[in-house]
């Protein structure tokens, strides 16, 4: 018993005392509870995978891998396939990544490379962080009533004049890929920006001083020294932003048009895995639910892989700097 070592101490006249048996019992109990809580998180993740995987099993047995390559979603005939949704998920996320990535990195540079006095930079950072706080549905509503009416004349002009280009192959009648991808880009921008800012801030100040000391212009320093040095952190930002885009649901369900087709056109309605779940799940019958569980498993697999890759890249980036210091 741990308390024995205190037994022979002379405590006459002292106000202090060793922890009582009760204290030790409490200590063991509390540590047990903390361990249990940590283990519970592990169990929760395992349970999520097992539960969704298990519920998808009947559909996997029924449809096999053809589910991933078939294009019809027909409740009457019981034919289910999610190729258009996978296409829509990847296409919209890539478009969003392109836009959100460029703007996110530009903002990270803007915030870290002495464009603004420190106090103003903090204000601007707050603005970008608040963008992340706006709920997905609100962006969806904004997209329907502000963005789509704004986008429609531009899109239809592009279609009328450059209709031969596959990206402008259809006109924008209402919801479609372009507004969805734009809103998605706005939503992942804070993620990309804040992780890139951290990556750029990790670079020791002397690196920048050395570059300026050699007489580089501001942008030679940024493009040839700062960005390459922060590249793995920025890559992690992009991968994690891509992961966010893949799983985003409500704004897409409201803006993408929920149409199961594969088209290169930016203005055609499309669908994503998450939007399919959101729009079909509440009214689905038992047969469709099984197919939806399969789709959920596919989404889970895609996002888990992308996020794990992003975290691995980020860990690599941080470790590199710790070694250099």
């Amino acid at each position, binding site marked *: 018993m741990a308390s024995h070592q205190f037994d022979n101490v002379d405590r006459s006249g002292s106000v*202090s005392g060793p*922890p009582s048996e009760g*204290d030790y019992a*409490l*200590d063991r109990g*509390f*540590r047990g509870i*903390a*361990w*249990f*809580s*940590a*283990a*519970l*998180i*592990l169990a*929760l*993740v395992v349970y*999520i995978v097992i*539960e*969704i995987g298990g*519920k998808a099993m009947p559909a996997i047995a029924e449809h096999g891998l053809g589910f991933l390559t078939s294009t019809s979603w027909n409740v009457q005939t019981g034919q289910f396939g999610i190729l258009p949704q996978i296409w829509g998920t990847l296409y919209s996320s890539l478009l969003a990544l392109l836009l959100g990535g*460029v*703007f996110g990195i*530009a*903002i990270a*540079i*803007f915030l870290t490379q002495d*464009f603004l006095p420190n106090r103003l930079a903090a204000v601007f950072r707050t*603005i*970008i962080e*608040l*963008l992340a*706080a*706006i*709920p*997905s*549905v*609100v*962006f*969806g*509503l904004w997209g*329907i*009533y502000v963005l789509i009416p704004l986008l429609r004349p531009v899109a239809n002009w592009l279609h009328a004049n450059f209709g031969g280009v596959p990206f402008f192959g259809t006109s924008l009648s209402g919801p479609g890929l372009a507004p969805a991808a734009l809103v998605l880009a706005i939503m992942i921008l804070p993620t990309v920006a804040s992780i890139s800012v951290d990556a750029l801030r990790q670079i020791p100040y002397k690196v920048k001083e050395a570059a300026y000391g050699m007489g580089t*212009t*501001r*942008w*030679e320093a940024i493009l040839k020294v700062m960005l390459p040095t922060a590249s793995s952190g920025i890559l992690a930002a992009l991968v*994690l932003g891509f992961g966010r885009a893949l*799983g*985003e*649901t*409500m704004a897409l369900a409201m803006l993408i048009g929920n149409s199961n087709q594969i088209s290169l056109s930016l203005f055609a309605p499309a669908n994503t895995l998450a939007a399919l*779940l*959101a729009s079909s*799940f*509440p009214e689905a019958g038992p047969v469709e639910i099984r197919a939806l569980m399969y789709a*959920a498993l596919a*989404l889970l697999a895609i*996002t888990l892989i992308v996020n794990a890759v992003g975290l691995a890249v980020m860990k690599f980036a941080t470790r590199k700097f710790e070694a250099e210091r």
Partner: protein
Amino acid sequence: MSATDLAVESAIRDLETTPAPKPSLHRAPLELRALKSGVLTGLTWIAALLASVPLFSVIYELVVAGGSRLSWETLTALPPSAFDLGGGFGNAIVGTLVMVGIATLISLPLGILAAVYLAILDPDSRLAHTVRFLAKVLTGFPSILAGVFVYAVMVVTMKTYSALAGGVALAVLMLPTVVLAAEQAMAMVPKKMKDAAYGIGCTRTQVIWKVVLPTGAPGILTGAMLAIAGAAGNSAPLLFTALFSDYYLRSLTEPTASLAILIFNFSGMPYENQIQLAWAASLVLVLIVLVFNILARIIGRQKY
């Protein structure tokens, strides 16, 4: 003297006599590289300004379209049916607060206890590394999948959509934020404070309760507030766990209204009244989210 030595000597003489071209330490403003730098700087400013347009546009629309409809009636009345005028979303406000409350009650204690294990008790154990990694992966977990999971586990077994299921789904999404923020806050407690406590004979539990948790409290609370703000605005997991209801909440085991789902449902309706209500509900939802966000900032600013 050899020929090479002579050549070197004459070269040195040349250097000494002909004045070297004076290097300019100034960059000509119209030099190509200076121009390039200027153009890129301009583009960055444009990108930064463009990126802040959506936020201001959203806020403007919320205030104009949502603010005009905000009244005591919209905050307390029940949602109108298709052709009705008036109405409100009092039940959705209550539903959102109740479900976020349930989620907080579940995720805060669990998350903080797990963070105690990760930060203090055994930071380098295999369990800690695994849980830390999984928590980070979970922050990027699509929220709709939390809904699918809770649907499979709770809605199917209870045979009803419920506020309880909605709360649990939100708790799943809050948990990783709480764990990671709390762990970071506790890991930042200075080691000498802990060592001093151990030195006077505290058990680890006493150190955690009397030193680590009080010292790390601002950081933990900041994380909690951010998690709550995130959960309040999140709607995807509620779609098929809490569903929706046109009435005030009477029990935790029946379908429950929430602001986010109300906005989602009303946004697609062809009626002017419902669309106005969707904007007003958005304003209220954003205000709720902002309150927790600002609280997080205020608490986080107090440094110990």
